[in-house]
């Protein structure tokens, strides 16, 4: 049941597709659901939590607890194969592999980003980044040079 709950801002994807749903188990008669935020400030967390409670209550589970898990931090690598396919079908380019996380100082990147993404509309690999920050915290904005359409790209984190 918890696996069918969808993301409020990407409604074709379930929380499981996104890798936000970390665990569902029963502890002494209570359904315990663990979710992790994509970004620290993700305003959709409250809605996700409420949707989960609503779905499980509607399914007849009276005692439900939704817990937040902060560690390990969410990464786009947790978006499932199904999730990536659904993103592309919805016109949003799925993320590439997440960047390495070095233990020491984080290297500075001042050049244009090396990120690439094929256009989810026409399939052309010839696309350019317009902005690293899009309409939601998790997306960047790109434009296709072949079909000229702008599109969103879930940025690697």
């Amino acid at each position, binding site marked *: *049941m918890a696996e*069918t*709950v969808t993301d*409020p801002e990407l*409604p074709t994807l379930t929380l499981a597709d996104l890798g936000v749903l970390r665990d569902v188990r029963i502890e002494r008669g209570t359904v*315990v659901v*663990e979710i992790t*935020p994509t*970004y*620290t*400030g*993700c*305003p959709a*967390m*409250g*809605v996700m*939590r*409420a*949707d989960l*409670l*609503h*779905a499980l209550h*509607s*399914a007849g589970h009276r005692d439900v*607890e*939704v*817990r*937040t*898990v*902060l*560690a*390990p*931090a*969410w*990464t786009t690598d947790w978006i499932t194969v199904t999730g990536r396919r659904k993103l592309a079908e919805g016109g949003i380019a799925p993320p590439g592999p997440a960047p390495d*996380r070095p*233990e*020491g*100082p*984080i290297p*500075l*990147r*001042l050049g244009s980003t090396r990120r690439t993404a094929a256009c989810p509309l026409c399939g052309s690999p010839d696309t350019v980044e*317009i*902005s*690293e*920050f*899009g*309409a939601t*915290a998790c997306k960047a*904005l790109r434009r296709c040079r072949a079909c000229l359409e702008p599109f969103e790209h879930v940025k690697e*984190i």
Partner: protein
Amino acid sequence: MAHEETVYEALDHASGGEGHWAFGTGFDEPLAGVDTTVPDGVDPVDLGTYCLMLGDDALVLAQRLTQWVTAAPELEEEVAIANVALDLLGQARLLLARAGSVGVLGRSRSRATASIPDEDALAYFREPDEFRSTALVAAPNGDFARTMARLLVAATIRLAVFARLRESRDSVLAAIAAKGVNELTYHRDHAGRWLLRLGDGTAESHRRAQDGVDTVWPLLADVFTPTDVETRLTAAGVAVDPATVRAEVQAVLGEVLGRATLRLPDWPADTAPRGRAGEHGPELGDLLADLQGLARQHPAATW
């Protein structure tokens, strides 16, 4: 499940249709289910105070950045600034909730109604002298170049601190830092690219970028000086002594400014902590009046 007409109706289902406090998110307990045990040998008041330092920096800078919304030079940049502010607000929320979880609430709890969560009580119901943010984040934005110069400096320092804080003995701080590092890397590099574009742009953009850097640099006088709280918590393996990030911060800023063809100003002489000790200029009070005014006038408002 019967799906709601709008996603926001779902919020009402969860709370029995009671509505939500208008100035929060309606999502209580950002640390719900997180183990908030204080590590052995650590004074909870020190831990909470340190969380206020890191949380207030994020809250105040988020508020400053938000002042660009509707006024940024281009739409994409406005969205970028709002995204950076939102990330910082998220960090502030968790850090202030962590302070609340160990009972560090200052005078806020006596002013805020009981229904207001700790982190919102801390944000909206403390006086300026209870804030632990530095002057670096409270300073007015100035023009766009100065805003980017300040964001570059603030994000560089915060990223260097958070990268080390991933090893904190406090598991909550370590988790917040690990998430924050991923976000702050985007903030620092974004501001750095703007400095390059402005510094190595036209004569006018270069002049403004240099002016921005020259205005921001004096604000660095107290950012590398640890407070007693930071010194004690660093010894306990919980905090990061800001003095230990100085070399890395100066190297990063030197590299950006060099590539941006900007002159590196002299580093100011170290002073005792001011903002971290609750000493602030009038600009913080003005900013907080904006941030807190509505919540204080309608302290139990819901929508």
